[in-house]
């Protein structure tokens, strides 16, 4: 007799038949490229060279061991740019996460409490930038930031203030030590991205049972106490999901920076993905780019594990 929870033979066959195609797909398009990237990280591989007989590895694409990883610490220009891109990516991520949460959570609470018709309208309006093409968003914000004819500078001048010389290209413009171009990029990214988290928070808030709130009210909790002691703890799984997704997307920042600043000025907005892309496809240093992508993979994995460790909750409602 099958143990409780185990599947019957027909169920197993069904599960196997529906999962096999997707597993094959994942193996071919996800797992194999990942394994290939791990291997490439140990070679000085360029697709421009024929190399050895096994997948072009060896001979003119020689095995270099951990040389690509060690090179990340030397003084060469690509290594310097890569290290700069790592610090830029961290800066971007750690500014985006709290700012995103600080905007989306209160806004979600306000929208969730509003009338049903208004709720739908605002949810749609705020979600619109999320479904807009990132390239289009980058072009829109590029025009807004234009130093000579941009909307932002016109508005600043209208109120009698002096705008910065250039939002996206001045290498000497900093605000509290953060490059102005990075701040401009963060604002554009927040505008595009916050609708996603907002919709998730609204859905999570709607899922909190009303009887828990009623009980808190009966116990005399005010609005603030209700938020801190009822709403926020119950949102913990959603908060974990939102944090993980926001960090993942921020660590993989590419399109906005590529289109708006191309990594400039002076690599102040070069992200890890931009560095990997340009080394792989512009300079044909696939081995070096693969090693860098392994570092990015490690960082993303570490963050995800840490967040699951510290933000997970052991209960559901």
């Amino acid at each position, binding site marked *: 007799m099958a143990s409780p929870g185990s599947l019957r033979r027909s169920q197993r066959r069904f599960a196997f038949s529906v999962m096999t195609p997707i597993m094959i797909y994942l193996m071919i398009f996800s797992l194999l490229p990942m394994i290939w990237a791990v291997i490439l990280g140990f070679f*000085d591989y*360029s*697709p*421009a*060279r*024929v*190399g050895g007989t096994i*997948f*072009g590895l060896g001979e*003119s694409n*020689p095995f*270099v061991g951990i*040389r690509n990883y060690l*090179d990340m610490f030397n*003084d*060469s*220009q*690509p290594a310097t*740019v890569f290290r700069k891109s790592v610090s830029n990516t961290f800066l971007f991520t750690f500014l985006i996460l709290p700012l995103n949460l600080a905007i989306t959570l209160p806004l979600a609470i306000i929208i969730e409490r509003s009338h049903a018709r208004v709720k739908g309208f605002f949810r749609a309006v705020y979600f619109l930038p999320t479904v807009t093409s990132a390239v289009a968003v980058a072009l829109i914000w*590029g025009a807004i930031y*234009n*130093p*000579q004819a941009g909307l932002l500078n016109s508005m600043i001048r209208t109120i009698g203030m*002096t705008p910065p*010389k*250039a939002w*996206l*290209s*001045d*290498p*000497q413009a900093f605000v509290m030590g953060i490059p102005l171009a990075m701040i401009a990029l963060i604002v554009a990214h927040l505008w595009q991205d916050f609708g996603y988290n907002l919709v998730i928070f609204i859905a999570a808030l709607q899922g909190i049972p009303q009887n828990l709130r009623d009980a808190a009210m009966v116990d005399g909790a005010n609005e603030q106490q209700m938020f801190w002691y009822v709403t926020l703890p119950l949102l913990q799984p959603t908060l974990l999901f939102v944090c993980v997704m926001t960090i993942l997307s921020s660590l993989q920042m590419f399109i906005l920076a590529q289109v708006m*600043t*191309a990594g*400039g*000025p*002076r*690599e102040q907005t070069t992200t890890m993905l931009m560095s990997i892309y340009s080394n792989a*496809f*512009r*300079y*044909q240093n*696939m081995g070096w780019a693969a090693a860098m992508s392994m570092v990015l993979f490690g960082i993303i994995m570490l963050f995800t594990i840490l967040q699951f460790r510290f933000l997970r909750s052991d209960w559901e409602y």
Partner: protein
Amino acid sequence: MRSYSPVRWLVLIMALVLASCSAAAPAAPVAEQVTIRMWSHQNSAFNKVNQELIDQFMKENPNIIVKYETFPYDQFIRTLQTSMPAGTEADVIEMFGSWVCNYATGGRLQETPAEVMSYTKAQEIFYKAPLDGYYCDGKLYGMPNEYNLEYSGALVNPELYKAAGIAFPPEYKDYNSLIADAKKMTAFSGETMTTAGFHYVGGDALGFIMLGGILEQGGNYFADDGKHFNFESKEALNVISTLTRYAREDKVIDPTLFSGDNGLPGAFFKNQVGIAYIGPWAAGVGLVDYPDVKFEYVALPPMFGSEYKFAADAGWGKVVSTNTKHSKEAWMLQNYLTINRANALKFNQISGTVPALKELVDNPAEILAVAPYMQPILKLLPHGQYLGNVTDRDQLFYEIIAKNLTDALNGTMTPEQAAAKMNAEANAMVDSKASK
């Protein structure tokens, strides 16, 4: 029911096979149809002329079918890189000269067969600067269609000249007069520069001014070993200091504002630039994409000294892949597109590119009839030399020269610091590639 024995079955099958074989045999010998592919990046003018020439080729060679496939520029590079290891790239590829040796020495391209063209013969008919991009380790790989020129030519804006009360078109004998005019055309709104008198801040422009400037002064950007660089010479420092002076003292360009969207040639066609240092290809782009903008293309004097001397970047041409299964037909097409005078002329006329074939420049009436803006710079062509093996052209130009020069122009580094950093980074690039 009647049954057949195995022997009968065998006889029947053999009879059918023999019958089908005899039916398939042609009544008369017919030339074998061969299908080859050609790839290029997407550029409406290039694609138009390539397609026309391919159609013509197929008419003249009815047994060869050519499939012409194009890709957006970035995708083209990625596709080359992924298809070559897989052996699925096209038989003939339109490739930029400065990429050729990278692919050729990696074993991805076929050496030009001696019966198609020898290097000695090619030197007679092509300019050396574009040809040498296709000549790697003593072997010729394909041939150029274009002489890529980014040196000593400029787009000039008649409206801004007129508004500043300067005679048009200008004929500059030296850079003092050019900068004087540029200063008159430069305009500000408060402290924000709205019009740049002289725009030379671009990845290609800065690179070619840097290398050409060193050569004009009799220097060399290569170190004695011919592989490493010397960007700390007095000639190199002079180039950086001069360009910095134009930006910081003469204030004819603000590199912070005139970059990105306001880079070259975009800012010029927005009427925000008086003189834009750029290759003649930009004039071709202007005629097609900005028909309402009035401009002229003029030759500029040497920036240093009185003699033109410059480094050139080969240009677009056609190469043949080592993976082709139809070498003969691929080289026929390659030959047809690059060496045939009428076809090479047609390519340059329609694509607006400078001819790589000497003959077309020696008798320039036909090319000038279509691209009159090339007139001022045709006289410069014999003064060019190929860039040489600069290890990684894009990294050197965009990541090393342009970035460090821009830092000097912005004032975030002194010219000496920029030269030292440029020198260190360029040589580290050489060492890094050599050591792996």
